[in-house]
């Protein structure tokens, strides 16, 4: 595979460079969350959840319920869950579901909603305080909230409902997001309770967070899906907005943990690589990832490749945010075969997760 040259990359990244600069620093509302107030909360804390998805089949063993936590310090430009990035509640506007009644305009105390010919009843991010008045006023559900503060017990109650399906399938709960480490105490509590119920537990994480928290969370996990996007530090920063030093350190530490955990209830660590054309979908990057796993991890050899898809386009629109990969075709899983081969040739156990 030819090396992707930098010019070509900047063709897509051109504008995003600016944006990444912007969002690697978080907005005023998000910042306090990240800088500690939520993280420091005692177990039993409430958390902000933006989706709970039952009958999920592709994030761990068996039939699972996925709990999506809100908030993520990374800003990957291909993010499939953009509504999970901000830690605060956001208002979603689904133009297709809108009947144009105007109730949202009338209800907004901030005057944040305006009617635009092309985009409908849009919200000005600058003025919106996410008070939810427009959501309550909206008859059709076209305005709705992304992110709801919920109690750990509440979440566990919902997760529990599919217990009999977990029992037959070996499934359970997977916590993803957003970023699990963005609300570590809450994640920990939900996992602990699920585990008490004997459910299989998993998380999906970017690995960007404090090791002590990750260590504690890992204690309650059967499986950890760990994102590894790019090994090159600068490239990683450019593409995701953050450095990967912590990520790689945490991954090494987790890998160590696999051994200390023992065989009683073993921990499984699976490296997940999002495969994004013109970003990291080259053999060179894949070889770097393979080399890292081979040389620096001693107990991990399973990799899942996640070919890029564009099923999330609409969500960016509903958030009123630009999407730089808009209109781009999804990557056909078979196209990823050569990358898979790169990894299998290195002795890794690699699967392509089709979308």
């Amino acid at each position, binding site marked *: 595979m030819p090396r992707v040259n930098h010019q070509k990359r900047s063709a897509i990244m051109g504008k995003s460079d600016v944006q990444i600069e912007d969002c690697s620093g978080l907005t005023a509302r998000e910042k306090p969350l990240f800088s500690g107030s939520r993280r420091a909360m005692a177990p039993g804390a409430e958390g902000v959840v933006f989706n709970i998805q039952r009958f999920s089949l592709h994030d761990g063993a*068996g*039939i699972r319920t996925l709990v999506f936590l809100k908030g993520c310090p990374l800003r990957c430009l291909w993010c499939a869950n953009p509504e999970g990035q901000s830690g605060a509640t956001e208002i979603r506007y689904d133009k297709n579901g809108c009947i144009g009644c105007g109730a949202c305009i009338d209800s907004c105390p901030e005057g944040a909603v305006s009617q635009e010919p092309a985009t409908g009843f849009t919200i000005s991010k600058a003025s919106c305080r996410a008070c939810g008045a427009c959501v309550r006023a909206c008859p059709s559900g076209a305005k709705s909230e992304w992110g709801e503060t919920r109690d750990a017990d509440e979440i566990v109650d919902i997760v529990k409902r599919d217990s009999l399906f977990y029992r037959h*399938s070996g499934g359970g709960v997977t916590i993803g997001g957003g970023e699990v480490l963005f609300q570590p105490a809450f994640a920990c509590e939900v996992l602990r309770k699920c585990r008490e119920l004997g459910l299989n537990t998993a998380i999906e994480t970017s690995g960007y967070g404090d090791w002590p928290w990750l260590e504690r969370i890992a204690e309650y996990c059967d499986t950890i899906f760990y994102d590894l996007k790019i090994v090159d530090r600068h490239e990683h920063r450019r593409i995701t907005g953050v450095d990967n030093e912590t990520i790689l350190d945490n991954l090494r530490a987790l890998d160590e943990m696999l051994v200390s955990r023992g065989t009683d209830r073993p921990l499984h660590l699976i490296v997940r690589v999002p495969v994004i054309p013109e970003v990291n979908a080259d053999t060179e990057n894949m070889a770097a990832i393979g080399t890292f796993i081979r040389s620096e991890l001693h107990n991990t050899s399973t990799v899942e490749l996640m070919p890029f898809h564009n099923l999330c386009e609409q969500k960016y629109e509903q958030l009123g945010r630009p999407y730089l990969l808009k209109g781009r075709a999804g990557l056909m899983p078979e196209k990823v075969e050569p990358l898979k081969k790169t990894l299998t040739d290195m002795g890794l156990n690699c699967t392509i997760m089709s979308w």
Partner: protein
Amino acid sequence: MPGFGPTARVEELKTRFLTYKPNVCIERARIYHHLYFQSEEVRDEPLIVGRALAFAKLLRERTIYIEDGQLIAGSMGSRPRAFPIYPESVGDDLLDEYRKLTTRAFDRFEFSDADLMELEEILPHWHDSSLRQILFPDMDAEEKKLFLMDPENNIVKGTNIFSLDVPLYGPAGHITPDYQTVLEIGFQGIKARAEKRLGRARQDNDKNAIDFLRAAIISCDAITDFGKRYAELARQMAKEETDADRRAELLTIAAACDQVPGLPPRTFQEAIQATWFLFVGIQQEAFQRCYSVGRLDQYAYPYLQADLQGGRISEERAQELLDCFFLKFPETNYINSEYYSHIASGFPSQQQICVGGQTPDGKDATNDLTYMCIQSSINTRLHQPSLSVRFWEGSPDALVEKTCELARLGTGHPSFFNDRRVVPGLVGKGIALEDARDYSSVGCASVQPTRKDKGSQNGGYINFAAALDFALHDGWWPLGNRQMGIKTGNPREFTSFEEVVEAFGRQLGYLIGVYSRASVKLEKIHRDRVPTPFVSCFVQDCIDRGLDRSAGGAVYNFGFSPRAVGLADVVDSLTAIRKLVFEDGILTMNGLMDALDADFKGNEHVRQMLKAKAPHYGNDDPRADDIAQKVVDIYVAETNRHRSLFGERFHPGFSSVSANIPYGTVISALPNGRQAWQSLADGCSPCHYVGKEGPTAAALSVGKLDHEGMTGGSILNIKLMPAAVAGETGLKNFVSYVKGALEAGVWHVQFNVVDSEVLREAQAHAEKYSDLLVRVAGYSAFFTGLSRPLQEDVIDRTEHCRC
């Protein structure tokens, strides 16, 4: 047991089948007409004997053929996919329809002008035989008003508030007779029993019994001789056959047909040949749909086992034979009215084969033949027969796996039946435990004790949503513009949710009351006008009792039972009223009624609120599911207040087939945001687009309902994208889902594993997808043969896979 794929013969038979066009065969009408109107033969005979004589004459005189390459002989008409005409129960009701058969939009038939002309000549003589012509004049004014759109002038056009549907066209159907006994003693053995019993009847001078038993004896000989005609034909063909292998096959067929069904089969081939003759026979005798082969894997297994042990057959050859048997089913056709072809297009006939489950003494019934039947469905992949697989606590994992392998092919087969709900349900209806354990599926989601049930279970539909429509209009029928229900008060004055539910319950109770009166009348007409002595020969204990099944000769004599249509619409509507009007107070009854009466015109915001701000049934949400439980309880309690002709309770159910589409056309706007004329939800499935929580939640919601009360069965349709069940992991998850759904307590579940893109593509390029099978609420059909609204319906069904 390894599964053997289709042989070249099976592939060829299937390919050839796909080229056959449905066609009309008028021989049956001609032969019956000749007997009744142009001869003296039946003039002085009792009605039932006349019917047996007609059956015998038909089997003696009609054209027969053996298809090239087929190993099983016997067919419905003079060529494949031929549909016979049944003047003795349908009269000239459908004459208008027959005229349109070659040109109508769906389910067209080949039908020559000469044949049509002959029918035009024949059928008017049979005008008074139509069950409809007999029933409707016998109805009281109230029944007429509820059943017929224009009772004074037209007895064909129904209201879609009710129908008696299936039993209005013929006397039998929905029946699983006693194949096992026929295999054990042959029809000559049955005849011997009948003769013995006739002797006693003569001593007792029991006129009814004498007539019935004479008719039974005539029928036994008729079916025996029918087999012999095929033996003769096979020998003839063998003489002319140049290929030595085929000649040998024809001679084997000849030997089989000499033996069965008169005498007990000696081999597996003869056992399934006998079964096929009986199956054809019951459909020659009378018009109905939903005849069942029942527990083939139970009664035919000993013959297979003996052949395998004796080295007379290889497993591969046995599979091929069974595949050939399966390929006979889609040859069977029914003519539906043009109207019905819109609602249930795709030539549905719901011929069930039911495998797995437990034995009468409560042991696991799974055997090699169970797996082979599933394999045959995999090998043939056609819309018929409908395969059902029963599951109970003791079913082996391998059975669930094999069944899921079939289900994920996307042919819509099989139906998964849940013994955990069915067996206690049947016991609760007074059926002995061992008979309940020996149940077979019939029709879509119904069940009955095999061999001992009178049959004829589907007694048409009741529009569940109509009860709500009437409750919201004080008994007035907005779209029909007349008073239909009873007076239950002005809804604008309701001050509590309980008043709404009570009004609904009373309207439903009223509808069910009128329905039961009419259905008992129709049962009497079946008894008095269209007895079925042939099939009664092998329904226990008709011979012993000396009574036709229609006269109560069976061990169990349940009557027709209603299927309700629109459960999810009613539940979501009531839930929305409770939440928005009586809990949150965002709406008033007045505001709601204004919006409904305007069909939401100028009230779109109200419609949106009703949809968006209330919980929905099917999401495992107690705030909607408790109402579902409540309305099901009302339905069960109301049906339990009535009795069939023979004093049994009804088997109420929720299985709409496709009646949810026409039944929606008579219902005005509902408080779940559904606008007037739109389709209702199918079976007991959630409304389209609201199944947000996915298939696990749907199964949990449905599992909460009182299925033991709803022994008429209820269908849960789950649509899955192929990706969800692909590969080894997909299969494993699919298996787990099925196990979970059964444990959650669904009565029945079936899957539509197909993606909507494929379906859209198929809409655009029908020719490329002529073998694309879809399960549409209770049956499988060819997708491209479906009407446009039905296609849309399939596509819209809640997408459950988020992958």
